């Protein structure tokens, strides 16, 4: 299939047939589980056929050509990025199961850029799934469509060849939406510059949708509170259309006796957010923007894996992009201890409610990744959503498989738990980084935290975080009750430390993804670098 034929404009948006638009883009939410599996099977067999005709596929399948879904799971070994590296780093189009039309790369948070080729069919899926996310983000009930030709979409996303940029670029070919800032203009801007430019432009044009990293929307909301106090008038704000938006917003906020919020200026219909922090900032974003964000689960190697429904609760798996297998938590733990251990997997129709799994994916549509351990843990929150009538297992992102901090083999704390506990202590903070360290040969969770205020004692912060973790994590609570150990150590970094770090990295020419230290398990070099940029206290 050629890219042109896949990415032509969808006439349904201009014709206004909401029923068909819903069916086409969000219809997977109506599938019963058995039909979901039929789709998975059909596309997997097609992928096996393509893979078996390619050099990479033959290598990954060890020369076999499984004749069934079960045989595929039984005989093809798990893979990780290192298995593909020789082919992908050199962009070996000829070795891929199908000819790629574009190459995406990851943020490189692990220190290595991971390349992922996209075939025309996969790009088409990315575009369609992006539109599905927009439709669902604005829907309050099944079948409700607010996405039409001409809507204005604020895009606070890294550009191509990041996956987010590819998603934005190609979805704009399906529907005539107005990207803010325009994709061509924003292509060469720095990330922060792009965000500022986008919101300034949206002051004039208005905004119907926004796609963003959750923290950006939260920070923009926060900064609006300060805007009323430190309002600086620029040509942008003096633009008549901007004035028409700002003045009623100011009046509205004054009448409500609160700072001005984004929701006073823009009546956005939908917000689409990706990343592990969406659930952390969910309430904050809903407060600032007036709508709950729609959480999507996307990875560069896979495209869309899952997205929330119109109720913005559990995420449903998208059936068309990847074949999903799930390694039960116990099996995953065994494989962590014994690297040679080949854990067993279950398929979607065998997952259990409340259980945690490591997700294993196989690309469809000629993608390269087969039985690929992407390194994410997910939790099946329910086997269906009674309220919305969705009959598919509902999931939530649990953590990165390698981002779990194990305390004394008892409590496994993931990024989300730690982040939520920091958020819940209600002390404004800039950023944080946590890792497992040993103090007097005892394992502790060491949190490097930069608070906005610098008059708080680290002991007090340790106590507050400890309280939150006890409340949030049952295993941690049990650990505390049973062992009486105090596994939290907090180092309070001086205000501006993270900014200094970021500037330092920026000056050194680091990529966007490497400007901030990772939240979890940062290596010694990064922690040393961070500490060296301030006078550590605590």
């Amino acid at each position, binding site marked *: 299939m050629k890219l042109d034929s896949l990415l032509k404009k969808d*006439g349904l948006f201009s014709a*206004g047939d909401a029923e068909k638009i819903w*069916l086409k883009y969000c219809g997977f939410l109506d599938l019963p589980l058995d039909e979901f599996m*039929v*789709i998975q099977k059909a596309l997997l067999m097609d992928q096996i056929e393509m893979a078996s005709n390619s050099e990479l596929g033959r290598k990954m399948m060890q020369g076999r050509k499984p004749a069934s879904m079960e045989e595929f799971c039984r005989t093809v070994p798990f893979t990780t990025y290192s298995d593909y590296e020789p082919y992908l780093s050199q962009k070996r189009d000829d070795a891929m199961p199908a000819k790629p039309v574009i190459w995406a790369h990851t943020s490189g948070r692990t220190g290595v850029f991971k390349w992922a080729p996209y075939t025309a069919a996969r790009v088409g899926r990315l575009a369609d799934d992006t539109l599905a996310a927009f439709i669902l983000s604005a829907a309050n009930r099944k079948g409700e469509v607010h996405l039409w030709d001409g809507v204005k979409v604020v895009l606070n996303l890294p550009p191509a060849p990041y996956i987010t940029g590819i998603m934005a670029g190609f979805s704009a070919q399906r529907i005539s939406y107005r990207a803010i800032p325009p994709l061509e203009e924003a292509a060469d801007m720095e990330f922060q510059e792009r965000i500022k430019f986008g919101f300034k432009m949206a002051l004039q044009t208005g905004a119907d949708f926004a796609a963003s990293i959750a923290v950006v929307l939260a920070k923009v909301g926060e900064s609006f509170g300060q805007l009323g106090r430190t309002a600086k008038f620029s040509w942008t704000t003096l633009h008549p259309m901007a004035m028409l938006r700002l003045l009623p917003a100011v009046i509205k906020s004054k009448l409500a006796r609160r700072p001005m919020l984004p929701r006073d200026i823009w009546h956005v219909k939908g917000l689409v957010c990706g990343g592990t922090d969406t659930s952390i900032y969910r309430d904050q974003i809903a407060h600032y923007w007036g709508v709950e964000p729609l959480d999507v689960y996307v990875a560069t190697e896979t495209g869309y894996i899952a997205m929330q429904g119109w109720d913005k609760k559990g995420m449903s798996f998208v059936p068309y992009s990847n074949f999903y297998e799930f390694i039960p938590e116990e099996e995953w733990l065994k494989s962590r201890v014994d690297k040679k251990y080949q854990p067993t997997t279950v398929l979607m129709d065998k997952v259990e409610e409340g259980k945690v799994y490591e997700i294993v994916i196989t690309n469809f549509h000629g993608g390269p990744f087969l039985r690929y351990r992407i390194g994410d843990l997910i939790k099946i929150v329910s086997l269906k959503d009674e309220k919305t009538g969705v009959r598919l297992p509902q999931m939530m992102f649990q953590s990165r498989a390698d981002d779990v901090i194990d305390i004394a083999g008892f409590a496994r704390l993931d990024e989300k738990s730690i982040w939520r506990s920091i958020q819940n202590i209600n002390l404004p903070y800039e950023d944080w980084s946590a890792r497992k360290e040993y103090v007097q040969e005892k394992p502790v969770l060491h949190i490097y935290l930069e608070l906005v205020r610098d008059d708080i004692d680290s002991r007090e912060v340790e106590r507050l975080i400890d309280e939150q973790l006890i409340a949030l994590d049952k295993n941690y609570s049990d650990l505390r009750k049973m062992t009486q150990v105090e596994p939290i150590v907090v180092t309070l970094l001086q205000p501006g430390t993270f900014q200094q770090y970021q500037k330092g990295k920026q000056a050194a020419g680091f990529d966007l993804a490497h400007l901030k230290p990772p939240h979890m398990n940062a290596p010694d070099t990064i922690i040393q670098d961070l500490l060296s940029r301030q006078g550590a206290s605590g």
Partner: protein
Amino acid sequence: MNVYYQVPPLIGFGLSFLLAVLVIRQHPYSFLHRIFAIFLTSMGLWALTVFGMRTSDTLDNALWWEKGIFVAYPVISVSFYHFVLVLTGFKNRGRILAVAYSLMVIFIGLAPTGLVVSDMKMMWYGYGFIAGPMLLSYIIVLYGIVILAIFQLVKAYRVSTSSVEKNRYAYVGVGAILCVLGLISDVVAERGDHVYPLGIVRNILFTMLTTYAMIKYHLLDFYMVIRRGTTYVIVSALGVGVLIGVVSLVYLFGIDAWSLDTGMKVAFIIVLAVLLQPLLKWTQGKVDKWFYRGRYDYLRVLESLGEETKTITDLGVITASLVNTVAAAMQCQSVLVLLPDAEDKWFVPVANRGVPERLSPRIRQDSVVVWWLGQREDFLSREQISVMPYFKALTAAEKEMLAQLEAELFVPLLTREGLKGILVLGRKLSEQDYSPEETRMLRVVARQMATTLDNARLYDLQMRRYREQALLAKLSTAVSAELDLKKIYNLFIRELKEAVPIDFASTNLMDEKGGPLVTAFAITVSPNIRSAHELARKSLEHIPGRAEPELHYNANLEWERKSPVEDRFYEVGMRSLLRLPLRSKGSVLGNFILATKTPDAYNAEDIKLLQQIAIQLAIAIDKSRLYEAEREARLELERQDRDRTDLVNALVHEIKTPLTAMVASAELLREELASDDSALGDLSRNLEVSTHNLDRRISELMDFAKVQSMETLVQVQPVSVHDVAQRVTAQISELLQSRQQTLKLEVPELPELPGYIKADPDRINQVLLNLLTNASKFSGLNQTICLRSYMLNSDMIFEVHDSAPPIDAQERELIFKPYYRRSKGKGSGGLGLGLFISKKLVQLHGGKIWIESDGSGNSFKFSLPLVYDTGGKT
């Protein structure tokens, strides 16, 4: 107050605003909807001003409102034009719209000045306006803009490939035409002609039609509306005519029908409606015939096709009728019938019309398309495939195939047992959607045809199997009977041509040692291929030296070519290429290549048949090779035998000549010294015996050599068994006497025998003499030897019984072999060739020889066929 004059503008006003709200509520963020809402709002304001004008109590007030009408109209005209440009996706509309909006502003400014409408006057229907000096310009410009919009719609209608879009443009265009007609009626009315100003009514219709086109996605088929509308107009006109006729008729009888009470009137109308039903049906038929000009007859044929083909069993005839009738009746670009293949793995095309030859559309049985048609038992449209989540599971190849096929509608052919076929229809020539009437008709046809097609398919399949079995049997017989490979190749190709399409065929073989492939046979019927052998040879340049053990089939070389071999065949116009391994006894002998210019020429059944044929061919090749090898070996052995016999003959000859002299000399010497009892006499006797022994052995060797080289000929003649016995008895008597042995002769006299034997008496004598000599030699002194002959069935049996120790079974197996000597006989001077020669001589007579042993001794028996004396007849 004149209700008919004043209410329509009020309805127009209310309707326009209501529709504007509906449009905006449907898609509040759609620019197209917003523009259209502006158009509707301005239409509503226009209707409001018309209402104001018509309800004015004075001419001055009416003039004030009339100017309002002329202010509102520019907005209607330009917003409609803007809407049409956006709807039809007109590019670079900025400048045109700038001009249009400028004109709109100018004429809005001119409208209140009195330049467009100067005053009002009373007309027969109400208020009428008096034209100002700019009215003509106003009308030309603003209605010109509407006409431009109509042109734009016509243009877009022509280029659009979407039936939905076309239908939408048709509705909007007709609405705009009504608007212009309304203007004409208003202007004509203003001139004082007795015409009612219908502008408001037509604008209401305009509003309703365009709004319907905007807010509904599935619009009624425009042509169907026109067709039905025409029928009802004709029937209504006829009805009114009948009504007036009846009223006039009864009036002649003094009855005023108009003065009848309401109940009577209603009853009359109901009766009239019932009576007009056949007329309605007849008129609809006539109108349909006119609308469907060219295909009306096909539509009728299609309706009865199922019934008419029920008794036909020829699948080709049925499917050809079906595709041709459907294509003509539906006026569609292509029609295709897919039925299950023999293995029920695919739905394969059995007949098509309009499908490009390069395509080979097949659908897997486990495809979601098949699943859908079987489960839902409903039609499947291209749009459903593009929209429904289930069809995102179509494989890349399936998507490609469906895209190339441009199929618009998949009609399931269902029987009680499930999906038995698929009727695939391409786009309609008119680019319209299939109307509900057409789909209803297709549903009926599909239901009727499904069973007929399935029965015909099964019958066809059975017939095909019979034909295949007959073909295989014929080829198998040929393989058994014929060893000439060239003849076999020719026969195979001749028969294959009857079964499958072939434009090129070659057989390439490796030698017995697995050497490189060499073309053994190649033919072509394609004018594009100059030399079949040349193509075969060139194709072998790209095939590995050894033939591949797997079957390779490329159904369409145009779509994909995986090797230079396939490129080579593609270049000479071939589209299907099949390479079959030639296997025999587990090893690959070579390959059999078939190619044809038809894509997807060989289905699963064909390939299965061709595999069987390839096996037969391999057997023939293997058999031929074995025969050739065996023949060569035999010739070599014969040559060696001949050489050896020649040598023995030469040797014997060389020895025999001096030996004859020696025998004669020895006999003379013995005779001379017969009475000499000295040592010299003994020596002479010994010399004689020895030279005789040597002579006999040399003779044996000569016989053996002759028997071996098949040079020994028997000259058969009627022989008396008795004479033979007597002769041999005389010859052996001397030996028996020397060993004091007795010969017991049990040979019946001639009259006791019903016939005689046909034999060479010398040879039979030789055999008997050999057996008797052996019997004497191995029996003890003073023992009795018996010679017997008797009849057994149709044979004459000769038996020589000795008194020697019994020969065991193992020795009996070996005793007739050349150079075998019995243990007791070793050293007795024989070469061990006597029994071998005897056996050969008996065999030359058509008989056999054997031994039977018991406690009393051994019986050497041989049989000779008995010839009955039947009065000269044998």
